């Protein structure tokens, strides 16, 4: 064979391979996107771990699941602190003071068309779907990750959970005393006692309504094949990479909030324009996950992404540090800023069972308060967060009932007050810090945490307290805290729902580690008050109890803190109707695209 012939054969093979690869790539899932309204949105981090609501727990699971699934209730887009019905015709009603709740489902709400249904056509949801979806929370096969939401709430549900998990097979058809079906669209749920947070729980994505056919059809793969009633249908999900979804053509009638519902400030941002129109407005949403902020920031600056959260390190690129006004070059581009106070509680907690720092005697309390008085949170805020965090007393974040006026409560040991710290150190038996062993502080390993740790070390050294920070990866840190090995530890809590009860649960005795009471705080008076507020709706009396509980925690000085973050966003001019919130994630259906502005 001549060299020429061999060369020709090689070239032909190479061309065939390239051609085949090209065709293969182009042929896979061809969609003519030119005619579609598409929005690209970012997720800063690795994105969701699962698309099965009962296995979800993170913000990113929530963000993804909320596009495919829906809950009975949801937050209002105009004011996310309030709730409204989503799959219900009206808010649930109770005639016996909150023990029995009556629900009425919207008619003609259909599951996504999917091969799990006969003929591939999604059927209408019924009361049985609601019961089935809630029962999944009790199934140990799903690791009981979200059982805490309904634990001890619904009549007979705990018994059902124990019996079914002990049996050979979890029987979803077995009855639960508190689930009462009236007809396909009406049902009642009876609680063991009135639990006010129950309605919040029904707005949380973990209680989304799923189709039993889909769970049984997909088995282990259900977590990547969501079949719900949501505004979008999953197209592709590449974990830690991207998630795309197309508009659900059979989405039940849901309308953009009426013009009258929007505040003046929102109207200035022209958020009211689409009032009363049926949603969703876009044909497709494409989420890209960014492990690092730089590519996300550049993609937004390029105009590709609809909006972006402003990463800490890019704050001064977007805003003037002193005035917090958006910089001129962004304003010229038509970019709009938005910010939200997060329901955040950032703290440095004490393990109340620790030999040195724990305990309830006056000496032990004095030691913890001395530490608290010696730490200057405002200095940390100014140095590391450009003063953008709110330092506040008590575990109740700003915006919720029970949060102290001007963020200050008298019971708090708010630093810096070095003379008070020294006085209390002497009372604790360590005059001028003498004889006090070093304090071991466990936190997660990040550059910022290391730097903050060094500042706290310096602040405590001023009253001769030796501070020994130890940094682990997040899971090792949690493991230390769960096993009560960390004398002092630091992380943050984001409220699951906008009620202080959620934060006050962090100090409820039975929730001790590995539960959410990582401080292992146990005070019977506090626990009794907590059990009382569980049954109470919003009232002055309840707020007074919240304040009483807040002050108990502050007097015992269970932690040093707290701080709340403000989240800043930038929105490109072509993205309409955008009012980002982290309280819920069902709002992507309200977004629209101004194609002309984008071009």
């Amino acid at each position, binding site marked *: 064979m001549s060299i020429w012939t061999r060369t020709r054969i090689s070239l032909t093979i190479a061309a065939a391979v*390239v051609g085949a*690869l*090209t065709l*293969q*790539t*182009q042929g*896979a*899932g061809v969609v003519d996107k030119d005619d579609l309204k598409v929005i*690209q949105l970012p997720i800063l981090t*690795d994105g969701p*771990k*699962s698309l099965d609501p009962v296995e979800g*727990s*993170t913000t990113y699971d929530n963000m993804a699941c909320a596009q495919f699934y829906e809950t009975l209730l949801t937050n209002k887009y105009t004011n996310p602190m309030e709730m409204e019905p989503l799959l219900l015709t009206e808010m649930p009603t109770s005639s016996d003071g909150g023990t029995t709740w009556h629900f009425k489902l919207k008619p003609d709400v259909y599951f996504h068309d999917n091969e799990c249904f006969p003929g591939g056509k999604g059927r209408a949801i019924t009361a049985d779907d609601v019961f089935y979806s809630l029962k999944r929370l009790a199934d*140990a096969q799903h*690791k*009981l*990750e979200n*059982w*805490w939401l309904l634990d001890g709430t619904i009549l007979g549900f705990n018994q059902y959970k124990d019996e079914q998990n002990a049996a050979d097979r979890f029987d979803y058809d077995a009855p639960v005393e508190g689930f009462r079906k009236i007809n396909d669209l009406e049902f009642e749920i009876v609680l063991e006692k009135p639990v006010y947070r129950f309605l919040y729980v029904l707005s949380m994505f973990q209680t989304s309504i799923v189709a039993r056919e889909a769970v049984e059809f997909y088995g*282990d793969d259900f*977590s*990547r094949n969501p079949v719900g009633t949501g505004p979008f249908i999953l197209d*592709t*999900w*590449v*974990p*830690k*990479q*991207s*998630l*795309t979804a197309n508009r659900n053509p059979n989405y039940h009638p849901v309308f953009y909030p009426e013009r009258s519902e929007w505040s003046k400030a929102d109207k200035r941002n022209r958020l009211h324009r689409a009032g009363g129109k049926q949603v969703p407005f876009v044909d497709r949403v*494409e*989420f*890209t*996950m*960014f*492990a*690092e902020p*730089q*590519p996300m920031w*550049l*993609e937004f*600056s*390029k105009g*590709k992404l609809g909006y972006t959260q402003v990463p800490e390190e890019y704050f001064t690129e977007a805003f003037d540090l002193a005035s917090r006004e958006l910089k001129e070059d962004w304003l010229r581009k038509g970019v709009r800023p938005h910010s939200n106070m997060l329901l955040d509680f950032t703290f440095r907690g004490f393990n109340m069972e620790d030999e040195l720092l724990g305990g309830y005697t006056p000496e032990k309390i004095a030691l913890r308060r001395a530490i608290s008085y010696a730490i200057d949170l405002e200095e940390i805020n100014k140095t590391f967060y450009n003063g953008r965090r709110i330092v506040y007393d008590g575990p109740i974040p700003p915006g919720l009932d029970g949060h102290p006026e001007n963020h200050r409560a008298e019971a708090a040991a708010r630093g810096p007050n070095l003379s008070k710290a020294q006085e209390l150190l002497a009372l604790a038996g360590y005059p001028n810090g003498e004889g006090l062993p070093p304090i071991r502080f466990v936190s997660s390993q990040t550059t910022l945490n290391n730097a903050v740790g060094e500042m706290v070390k310096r602040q405590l050294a001023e009253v001769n307290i030796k501070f020994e920070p130890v940094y682990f*990866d*997040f*899971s*090792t840190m*949690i*493991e230390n805290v*769960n096993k009560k090995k960390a004398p002092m530890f630091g*992380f943050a*809590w984001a409220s699951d729902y906008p009620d202080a009860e959620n934060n006050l649960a962090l100090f409820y005795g039975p929730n001790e580690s*590995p*539960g*959410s009471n*990582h401080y292992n705080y146990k005070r019977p008076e506090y626990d009794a008050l907590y059990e009382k507020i569980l049954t109470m709706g919003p009232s002055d009396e309840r707020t007074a109890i919240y304040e009483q509980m807040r002050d108990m925690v502050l007097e015992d000085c269970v932690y040093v803190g707290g701080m709340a973050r403000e989240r800043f966003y930038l929105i490109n001019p072509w993205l309409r109707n955008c009012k980002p919130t982290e309280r819920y994630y069902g709002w992507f259906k309200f977004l629209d695209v101004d194609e002309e502005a984008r071009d």
Partner: protein
Amino acid sequence: MWTYIVRRTLYNIPVFLSIIFVVMLALRVNDPVSAQLGKNASQQQIELLTEEMGLNQPFLEQYGRFIWKLVRLDFDERSWDQGFPVGEMILNAIPPSMAVTIPTLTITASIAICVGLISAFNRGRVIDKTLMFVAVIGMSISVLVYIIIGQYWGAFLPSQKVDGWPFQISVDASAGETPWFFFNPANWVAFCMLPVMINVTVALGYDTRFYRAVMVEESQRDYIRTARAKGASIKRVMFVHMLKNAMIPIITRIMISLPFIITGSILIEVYFSIPGMGRTLINAINAKDFPVIQAFTALFSALFIASNILTDVLYALADPRVRLS
């Protein structure tokens, strides 16, 4: 030769098993259950998950079960973090990594060998010093700096000035699920060319210096002087005589880099959102996703062992004096 390959493979089995043993043991120093359950776990959840993960069983039993799965090439175990079968994750991650690493390796080796030859032949002259200076500068700067500058100056800024600028900042959702997306020439230029250029810039310095040293050594040998004395052109001496005789170190260098084709490059993949092996592995390590880390360990170990054996075989093919025994 086949006898040699079989014998070397058998010799390496204990090495392979030991690597997996050590990695599995080291992984179990930490508790992955807390990583999976987060801040709000109950004792019952912890026990349930520990049992589901099989971590309540004796270590040797866990080790034995994993090895048995390897023997059967069974990679169906699901990732604890993502819920996807590990085999599927590996198969989906290999092509994107290869889209970056194969061109990187090919371009780097080709350029570095040529530059090494030129430098060696011009040893001590301005051209040699300039090339080595550039090479040292190239390798002295962190890859992270190249990435940050590359994304800004190579993708973002030109896209603001030039319509249709081909390089993208990072892979977006349009890549979809198909792992072969990056093998489409247009997609490759958009998403892989810039990462390849950065990888080449970083790797070039190391490779050039290495090849130059090899070539310098070769250029001082008698056969080079003889070839020159007999009137062979510089080009012929360089690319025929010298290159052929320098094949052993070149093969070694290239073969050492071969597993990198599969394993990818972590930082490049993270910053450019390339869903390759490097990114998958670092995610698994962060999430303490033992099934994925163990499978990757087995794969990487096998690759390194295979490339070592292959290197020996290639030595014998390149140099008749080398005998496989």
